[in-house]
């Protein structure tokens, strides 16, 4: 890209240092729309910090990743978010933490990939689906949270505590292990001491672990995390 244009964007952003990254990104994006420059070619670098890690095709990346599992036409609805706020007003975690589902959708749209993926609040969503139920545009917001978390994990953001749950899964094929106490209770109830799951079938456990290796889950868990 020519130098003059790059300078113009960085200076426009620099003037607005007091703003949050998301607000800066808004202004820059409006500039981009007016100038009709392909978004992905823009290099956002200022003398001081400007918009860090902005990636204007992040929304496309989310929709692509989501469409591998979910219906593409549902996921494309992400493009129709009007920031009406019905989601955030319905969110129970939003009452108790600084997690804001509306801001996530806004930042995702604006391409603030690093902000979104490294935000600890992303993990405050209990996936209760209330926002998804109520979104007037039918945006599958909760599923999008799960997809963005997938991308965050692949970018190396996984809590230690979550890694431990994964290790349980990679060891026992269950998210929770049994214990002597539980085995005794089961026996007293007249149930099989070990439930009829992979816990009583080592060869089937091997099968599950093989799948976890085959899908790349094992490597992903071992390679990610802070």
């Amino acid at each position, binding site marked *: 890209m020519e130098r003059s244009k790059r300078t113009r964007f960085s200076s426009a952003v620099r003037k607005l240092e007091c703003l949050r990254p998301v607000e800066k990104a808004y202004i820059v994006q409006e500039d981009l729309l007016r100038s009709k420059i392909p978004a992905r070619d823009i290099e956002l670098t200022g003398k001081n910090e400007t918009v860090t890690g902005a990636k204007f095709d992040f929304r496309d990346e989310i929709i692509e990743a989501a469409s591998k599992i979910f219906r593409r036409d549902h996921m494309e609805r992400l493009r129709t978010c009007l920031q009406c706020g019905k989601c955030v007003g319905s969110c129970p975690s939003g009452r108790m933490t600084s997690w804001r589902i509306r801001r996530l959708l806004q930042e995702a749209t604006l391409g603030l990939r690093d902000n979104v993926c490294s935000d600890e609040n992303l993990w405050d969503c*209990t996936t209760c689906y209330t926002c998804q139920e109520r979104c007037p545009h039918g945006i599958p917001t909760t599923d999008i949270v799960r997809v963005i978390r997938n991308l965050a994990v692949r970018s190396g953001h996984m809590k230690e505590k979550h890694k431990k749950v994964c290790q349980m899964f990679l060891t026992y094929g269950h998210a929770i292990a049994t214990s002597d106490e539980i085995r005794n209770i089961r026996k007293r109830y007249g*149930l099989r001491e070990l439930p009829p799951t992979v816990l009583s079938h080592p060869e089937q456990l091997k099968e599950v672990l093989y799948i976890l290796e085959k899908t790349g889950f094992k490597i992903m868990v071992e390679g990610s995390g802070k």
Partner: protein
Amino acid sequence: MNRYSYFLGCITPNRYPGIELATRKVLGTFDIEILDVEGASCCPAPGVFGSFDLMTWLVVAARNICIAEEMNSDIMVTCNGCYATLHEANYLLKQDDKLRDDVNIILKTVNREYKGIVKVKHVIEVLSEDIGYERIKQKLSRPLSGVKVAVHYGCHFLKPSEMRRHGSSERPTIIDDFVRALGAQSVSYKDKLTCCGAGGGVRAGSSDLALNYTRSKIENIVHEGADCVVTPCAFCHFQFDAGQVELSETQGKQFKLPVVYLTQLLGLALGMSSEDVGLDGNKTQVQSLLEKLRVQQIAHAVKK
């Protein structure tokens, strides 16, 4: 005679075997045959493993469904998390041929194939559709009259409603109707449809936040004078029951709210003892509820 593959998941067999016990006993009295899903694993948890890698989540879920397919019987679950995963995986794989092929390529390496020939049902659906509340009413030997029950629906049984198709997720009635069929009163309380706090990896990742949800729910339930909370989900059950111990340890909040699973409540109404339905495995006391049942029963006998 109806038969189901009982998919246990993780929490039911490894933390609350009482739920498993009650479910097997209660369904047995209504001639529902229960088969074991030998070699099943974690479902895997929708908001935990689904948040880490959706493809892995889907393939392991499909493998679990495959086992039931090989047994040629529909799946029944007692956990909303298992329900969410298996129901959603079944739904996604039935509607998308390309996705099914992708999943089957991996399953082929372990000599399995997802076919899409079984249904996934929650135990409340078995109770309401296969057995029917009218038939349940006729069999009650100890109706729970005078007992005030707070119904907790949990999230993933109802939502996303587009997929679950249990009617409105804002005004559900299926469990309230069940509680009333048992002769008890279903009390309304503030934020009745709010999450227990455990889902989405929050219990594992930020237990304080999960407990704040739970505290708020329990306070609202206690405020209405309920004798117990009834849950349709082993994970919510865990969060309410173990959560009360954790709330006392971390926040100094003392609650004594009995936590009862759907089939445990039904077992009590069928005249079973609290040991018969595995309520002795709870961490929080259930004596206050049992005492109330006893008093109501005596009052009932005197009236007669």
